[in-house]
C-alpha cells in the first residue's frame, strides 16, 4: 500500500535527509525564545498561502492579485464564526467555511475570465481584491471594527493548541498536509493536465483536457489554501490582525514568495516563506530595520530576473543538467548541437552546442577551422545560429546532433 506513495520522496534525496528535516522542523522551537516560535507559526501560514498561490502562478501560469483579500476574508469570517461573541461554532467548522468561501470567490474570478488569460485575469483578480476590501472588510461585525476582538486558540479532538509551541505544531501539521496534497496532486493525472494547459491550451485540448476546467480548478485549490492560511491566522494572533494587512499591496507581497521560489520545488517555496518572515525580525535583533515589503520587492525583482523557474528551479536545473549531460553522452546525444562546415570541405570543422537554456554569445566568435580550406579560421556566428535554432524564436531549424549547417543554409 505504501508503495503507491513512494514517489512523494525524491529518488535523488537520501532518505535520512527527510528524517533530519523533520527533526529540525519539530525540534527548533524547543530551543529558541517564544517570539521565534510565534514567528514560526506565522511562517508556516505564509508558506501555506504561498503554496496556494504557486498552484495558480506556477502550475496554471496565471497571476492572482486577490490573495491578500482572500486570506483576510477567511481571517475575519473564521474568527467571527468561532469566537464567543460571534457564532461560537467549533473551530474546524469555522475554518472549513472560511476555506470554502475563499475557494468559491477565487473560482468565481477564474470563471469570469475562463476564456481569457494574462493581463485580464490580473485585472479581474485585482478587482476582486478591491471589492472585498470595500465590502467584507467594512463589516464591523466580522472585523471587530476599531475596537478589535479577542479570539482564543482552538481545541479539538482532545488536543489544546493554546501555547505558541503547540499552535506552531498545528500550523506545521497543516503545512505538511498541504505539501503532501500538492505533491500527490502534481503527480496525478490532474496535476499533469494543469501543467499541460499552462504549456499550451490547444495541446491540452487535443488530448482530451478542458483548459477552462483546469484553470478554474487551479484557482479553487489556491483559494481553499489561502482560506486555510487565513482561518488559522485568526487564532495565531488571538485578535485578528488589522485589515491594513490584507490590502492590495499585501497581495504583491504574497505573490513575491512563489515568484522568488519558482514552481519547480515546493520546498523552495517554504524556504522563501520562512526567509521572508524571519529575515526582518532577525535583522531587527541586530538593530537593522528592514521592512517586509522591501524583502517582498527584492524577492519579486530576483524572481523576475531568474525567470519562471525561480530560485528552486534554477538550482535544480544546475544539478539536473549535469546529470543529464552524462545520460545524453551515453546515448550518443550530446544535446542540441550544430556542425559547422566551410562549404568547400566535406569534413566537419567544429560542433557548436546549442542548448536551449544557453544564453547565446553576443559577439561574433571565431571558430578554429582545423581542416579549413586555407588552414586559417572560419568566422562563424554562433549567436545567430543559436538564435535561429532556439525553439523559442519561432525559427525551427534542427539542432540535431549531426545536422549539417554551413552557415548559409
Amino acid at each position, binding site marked *: 500500500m505504501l508503495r503507491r506513495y513512494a514517489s512523494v520522496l525524491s529518488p535523488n534525496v537520501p532518505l535520512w535527509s527527510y528524517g533530519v528535516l523533520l527533526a529540525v522542523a519539530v525540534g527548533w522551537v524547543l530551543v529558541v525564545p517564544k517570539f521565534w516560535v510565534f514567528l514560526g507559526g506565522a511562517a508556516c501560514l505564509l508558506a501555506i498561502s504561498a503554496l496556494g498561490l504557486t498552484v495558480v502562478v506556477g502550475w496554471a501560469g496565471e497571476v492572482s492579485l486577490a490573495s491578500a483579500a482572500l486570506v483576510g476574508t477567511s481571517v475575519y469570517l473564521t474568527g467571527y464564526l468561532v469566537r464567543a461573541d460571534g457564532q461560537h461554532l467549533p473551530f474546524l467548522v469555522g475554518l472549513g467555511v472560511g476555506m470554502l468561501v475563499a475557494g468559491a470567490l477565487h473560482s468565481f474570478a477564474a470563471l469570469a475570465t475562463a476564456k481569457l488569460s494574462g493581463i485580464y485575469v490580473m485585472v479581474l483578480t485585482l478587482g476582486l481584491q478591491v471589492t472585498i476590501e470595500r465590502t467584507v472588510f467594512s463589516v464591523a461585525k466580522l472585523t471587530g471594527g476599531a475596537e478589535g476582538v479577542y479570539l482564543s486558540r482552538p481545541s479539538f479532538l482532545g488536543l489544546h493548541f493554546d501555547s505558541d509551541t503547540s499552535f506552531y505544531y498545528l500550523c506545521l501539521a497543516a503545512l505538511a498536509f498541504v505539501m503532501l496534497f500538492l505533491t500527490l496532486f502534481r503527480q496525478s*493525472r490532474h496535476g499533469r493536465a494543469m501543467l499541460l494547459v499552462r*504549456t499550451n491550451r490547444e*495541446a491540452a*485540448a*487535443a488530448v*482530451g483536457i478542458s483548459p477552462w476546467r483546469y484553470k478554474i480548478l487551479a484557482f479553487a485549490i489556491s483559494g481553499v489554501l489561502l482560506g486555510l492560511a487565513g482561518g488559522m491566522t485568526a487564532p495565531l494572533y488571538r485578535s485578528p490582525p488589522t485589515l491594513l494587512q490584507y490590502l492590495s499591496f499585501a497581495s504583491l507581497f504574497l505573490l513575491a514568495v512563489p515568484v522568488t521560489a519558482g514552481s519547480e520545488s515546493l520546498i523552495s517555496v517554504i524556504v522563501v516563506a520562512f526567509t521572508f518572515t524571519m529575515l526582518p525580525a532577525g535583522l531587527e535583533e541586530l538593530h537593522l530595520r528592514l521592512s517586509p515589503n522591501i524583502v517582498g520587492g527584492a524577492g519579486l525583482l530576483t524572481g523576475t530576473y531568474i525567470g519562471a523557474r525561480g530560485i528552486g528551479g534554477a538550482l535544480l536545473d544546475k544539478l539536473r543538467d549535469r546529470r543529464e549531460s552524462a545520460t545524453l553522452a551515453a546515448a550518443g*546525444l550530446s544535446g542540441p548541437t550544430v556542425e559547422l562546415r566551410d562549404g568547400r570541405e566535406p569534413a566537419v570543422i567544429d560542433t557548436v552546442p546549442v542548448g*536551449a537554456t544557453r544564453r547565446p554569445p553576443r559577439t561574433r566568435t571565431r571558430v578554429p577551422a582545423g581542416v579549413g580550406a586555407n588552414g586559417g579560421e572560419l568566422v562563424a556566428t554562433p549567436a545567430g545560429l543559436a538564435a535561429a535554432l532556439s525553439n523559442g524564436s519561432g525559427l525551427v531549424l534542427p539542432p*540535431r546532433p549531426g545536422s549539417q549547417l554551413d552557415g548559409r543554409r
Partner: protein
Amino acid sequence: MAVTEFQPPELGEGQDAALEVFERFLPEQTYEGVPLVGRDLSKAFGGIRALREVPLIEVPPHTFVGLIGPNGAGKSTLFNVLNGFTSPDTGEVILFGQDVTKKQPWDRAKLGMSRTFQANHIDLDLTTFDNLLAGAFQLIRGGLFTATFRSSKNYADEQKARVAAKAVARLLGLEPVLNVMARNLDFAAQRRIEIGRSLMSGPRLLLLDEPTAGVDAHEAKELVALVKRMQVDLGLAVLLIEHFVQAVMENCNPIYVLDQGTLIASGTPSEVSKDPKVRASYLGESGTGKHA
C-alpha cells in the same frame, strides 16, 4: 485481509514487446463508422476565405491520408476545423459516425481523435517521460481526490500508463532519453515527444500537422516512415499535412490537395501527381520530390 497491490504489465525486450504493451494500453474501439468525414466546409476570417466549400475530406479506417498544398492553402485551417479549434461557417464534421461540428476539441478527443501541431507544444521543463504521460489523461481514471490520493483503480491505470509511456518511448526511439528534460533534447526528439504524447491519448484517428517541420530531409523521411509503421501496426487512421511532398507521395493514399482554400484534387498518389491543376499550382512541371 491483505490488500493485493496491482502488478503493472512487464515491458519485455525489443520493438515487438513495446508494440504489444502499447496495443494493450489502447482503449477498445467502441465507435463505428468512418473515422473522419468533413463535408462542404467553409471558413472566412474577415475578407479572407481560408476554406471555400471543401466538398469532402474523408479518412477511412486504417488509412494514411495525406493533405498537401502550398503555403496559405488553408491546410491548417482545415485541420483546426476538423479538430474543433475553429468552427466552420458552413459544413459538418463527422467523427466515427457522430456529428461533432459543434463539439469542443476535448470532446472530440474523447471520441478517439488526437493531433499534433506545427510548432512544438511540449513542456520543455518536463522529462520525456512526464511529457508522454501527460497524454494519457483520459485513459487514467480518477476524480480530484481519488486520483490525488491514488485509489486502487487510479493506481492501476497509472501503472499501466507508465509502462505504456516507456513502450511508446521505445517505439519512437526516445528510450535512452526517457528521464532527460525535453529542453536538453534536439528538435527532432522534441517532435517525437509530441507525436508520442498524442499516441498516449489512445487515439484511433491521428491528425499530424507538419510533423517534419524544422527537421532535416533525412530525419523527415525517417519520421514519416516511423509514423507510417505505427499507423499500420496499430491500425490507426492518420491524416497528415506535410510540406515534404515526396514523403506524402510514398506513404499516403489517398491524397487531398488544397490551394487557396479550394480542394483542387484528390486521389491516389499517381492520380494526384498527374493532375494538371496540381502540377500547375503546386508540384511544378518537374513532378514530385520537391521539399517545399
